[in-house]
């Protein structure tokens, strides 16, 4: 009996460690290497700038009021991920015809509660242009 209880404890500890490592796994990490807040992340990182700026005649001036489009994907418990966070979708959502630059926004929450951890992540791609 004592042996079994000890076994159970070991199992619980092991599962706790496994689930604690969940957000570090490649599956939960996604493509973004900056998604590093173990418990809470709310950050924006740069992705790319477009050559559209190059065209002197048709330069898109960067400003606060410039047009933007957004697309997002959602990950729940590191097990299921759905949505379309592509540039293509963001451009369609914002009805843009020219792209100036692209930012990526990551929101993530992880609460390591034993064998029932809470994990939630939203990845947003914002495309700025006109």
């Amino acid at each position, binding site marked *: 009996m004592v042996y079994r209880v000890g076994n159970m404890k070991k199992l619980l500890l092991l599962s706790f460690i496994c689930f604690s490592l969940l957000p570090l796994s490649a599956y939960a990490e996604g493509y973004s290497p900056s998604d590093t*807040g173990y418990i809470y992340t709310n950050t924006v990182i740069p992705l790319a700038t477009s050559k559209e700026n190059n065209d002197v005649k048709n330069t898109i001036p960067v400003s606060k009021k410039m047009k933007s489009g957004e697309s997002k994907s959602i990950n729940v418990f590191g097990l299921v991920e759905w949505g379309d966070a592509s540039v293509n979708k963001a451009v369609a959502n914002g009805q843009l015809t020219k792209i100036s630059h692209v930012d990526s926004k990551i929101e993530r929450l992880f609460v390591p509660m034993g064998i029932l951890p809470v994990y939630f992540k939203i990845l947003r791609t914002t495309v700025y242009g006109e």
Partner: protein
Amino acid sequence: MKKFLIIAAFMGFLLAQTTQMAQARGLFYTNTEYPVSATGVSVKDLKNMKKGESSSLNILGVVEYGDAGIQTAAVSKGIKKIYFVDMHEKAIFIFYRKLTTKVYGE
């Protein structure tokens, strides 16, 4: 106890590994600047470029917050035309990490 310490050390190592974004990864100390993107705009005056900055902060690898986007950096200094974007990263083991996006332009 020995096993536990080994596991703890392994976890700490993994945590530290994930806290770096740059290609150059210093496990204990990182202070580097690397390119993100360039638009291909011809630079008229290299010495008098405008420089906009935005940054995000990571504490203990546990919490990360802040806006290090291109949009925030560009708008902060009123940059209308972007030349190129650099990223500055400063990290001290797992305790502290700061990402600064630097947008150069006019």
